[in-house]
């Protein structure tokens, strides 16, 4: 056992922290209020190497480990979960999927610009009637011998409008059920792709979320990822790793809210003393601190397992479920500690609370994680 971070990991954490606290914080409230996409910030993050952190340098990435990724995600998410979700989708779904399962041509053509952050990607799995139940894909990818023809609708797509490269999950052989599903790399500008309106979300309002409609979209044969019918397995394995990203995002929301609550409690006075001196507040902070530490340890363990090529299904589900649930609890308590101030936007914690809610829902709801966890416990 070794709980020490390397010098490089600590430098990456500090770099992410500096970027978030110097740059993201400046306009995070305005972008939330007006739903403005953080174009310039993402560009800078890409220059620093945060958009393809774990991709091999030969494919434009930074070649970092997953531990570094967790540390960076936490720091960015403390300030701005909209930016960190764009980062997470690009890193742990799109780049990870292509880096691990794409062939050489696909990596050369699509991974390099994605990992270097020249363009960003989106992952299109959810459908109006298939969220947690991803086996029932209504979107079809008909095999037309020399190409595929995609038809259908995808929902809740992060970065749908800003992304240049889509990874689309669709059904090719309905008779084979989930074994007939494929994953495709699709150019966002392909004829036949239209976007639904910008979703007016409760939180993470600076990220752009849309539904995406496919109408006879032609996709070249060579853009299928893996063997025919690999798509469902692909999606599941990618999401399994992606959970570490969202878990770390939830962790950052919780620790960010905790830091703000602790700072406020040391300043604000009531009944003649700083409210931190009241046990009612001190114990809340204590509970937050234990939860945050537990979530951090779960995230780091899942990351360590991934870095050491060990199974991560259980660990990433635990990290995601726990971190998301405590993010909701800790951000809610942070609002409580701030009292009336916590309920106004200027103090940030109400935004963190709105953002935390989404971590319990996307990339596998907390309930889906519990299915994964309990199945593991009960099997055999």
């Amino acid at each position, binding site marked *: 056992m070794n709980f020490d971070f390397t*010098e*490089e990991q*600590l*430098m*990456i954490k500090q*770099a992410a922290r*500096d*970027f978030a606290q*110097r740059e993201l914080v400046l306009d995070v409230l305005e972008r939330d209020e007006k739903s403005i996409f953080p174009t310039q910030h993402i560009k800078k993050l890409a*220059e*620093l*190497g*945060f958009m393809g*952190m774990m991709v091999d*340098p030969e494919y434009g990435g*930074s*070649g*970092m480990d997953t531990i570094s990724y967790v540390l960076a995600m936490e720091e960015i998410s403390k300030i701005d979960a909209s930016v960190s979700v764009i980062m997470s989708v690009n890193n742990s779904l799109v780049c990870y999927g292509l880096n691990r399962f794409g062939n050489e041509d696909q990596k050369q053509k699509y991974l390099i610009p994605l990992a270097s952050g020249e363009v960003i990607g989106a992952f299109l799995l959810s459908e109006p009637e298939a969220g947690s139940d991803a086996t029932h894909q209504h979107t079809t990818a008909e095999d037309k011998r020399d190409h595929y023809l995609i038809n259908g609708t995808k929902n809740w797509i992060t970065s749908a409008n800003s992304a240049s490269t889509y990874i689309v999950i669709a059904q090719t052989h309905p008779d084979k059920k989930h074994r007939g599903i494929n994953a495709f790399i699709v150019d966002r500008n392909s004829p036949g792709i239209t976007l639904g309106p910008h979703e007016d979300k409760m939180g993470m309002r600076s990220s752009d979320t849309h539904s995406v409609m496919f109408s006879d979209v032609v996709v070249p044969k060579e853009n299928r990822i893996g063997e025919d019918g690999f798509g469902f397995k692909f999606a599941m394995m990618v999401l399994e790793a992606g959970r570490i990203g969202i878990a770390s995002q939830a962790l950052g929301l919780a620790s960010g809210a905790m830091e703000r609550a602790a700072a406020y409690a040391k300043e604000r006075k009531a009944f003649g003393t700083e409210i931190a001196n009241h046990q009612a507040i001190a114990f809340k902070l204590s509970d937050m601190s234990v939860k945050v530490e537990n979530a951090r340890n779960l995230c780091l363990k899942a990351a360590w397992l991934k870095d050491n090529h060990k199974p991560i299904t259980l660990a990433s589900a635990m990290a995601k479920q726990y971190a998301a649930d405590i993010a909701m609890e800790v951000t809610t308590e942070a609002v409580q500690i701030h009292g009336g101030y916590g309920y106004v936007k200027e103090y940030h914690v109400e935004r963190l609370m709105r953002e935390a809610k989404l971590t319990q829902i996307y990339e596998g709801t907390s309930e889906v994680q519990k299915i994964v966890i309990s199945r593991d416990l009960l099997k055999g």
Partner: protein
Amino acid sequence: MKILVLISNVPDTTTKIRFTGDNTSFDDAGVQWIINPWDELALTRAMELKEAGGVDTITVANVGEKSTEPTLRKALAVGADDAIRIDAPAKDAFFVAAQLAEVAKGYDLILAGIEASDYNGNAVGGMLAEILDFNSVSAVSGINIEGDSFKVNREIDGGSQVLTISGPLVAIVQKGIAKEPRIPAMRGIMMARKKPLVVAPPVDAHEKTQFVNFELPPPKAACKMVDEENAKEIITLLHEEAKVL
């Protein structure tokens, strides 16, 4: 052109300061160490000059024990080409300047932060220039390379002075020298370990000062409110209590 940037390894600026040994030494338990903020700006300006062309290498140097290497590697991650660590604790300004003088020959421009944020000595840059017999300008808020010499902006009372000065030069830099320190890119972080970090033995030099004891500033007194009707009392308070009048 070769630039040397002097790097001081200092406690993070948010460190809670404590002393040990009957207030004779700084308690460094649990302290996070950083590049002295002024030196970090100096390094940023060095990078800008290199990017503008005309600079071959940027070297960073510090006097410190092995524990200070992460600070030097951060400077390498930001973009310095190589680093020198003189293997001795940084005892006082003269000791540090004497050590640096051994490695600083051969550079055309030496950038030193105006002071280190730990002891605020404001002395190493000037001493180094004196030992080396280099030109030196203090309070530099801007510097550009002009052929073989430098165009330097220096802050003076009520304005600023523009100088042209030949090298080798020790520029003691302050606010304005660069906008803000750079965040190291991941590629830089990964390359930092591959860049040369030379450990040089210290030379014989004796420190000229000794720490007798440290004192923390008195805790901030509570804010005193004066009623509108007693406005005149402010004068009395400023005179008798605050002693500023």
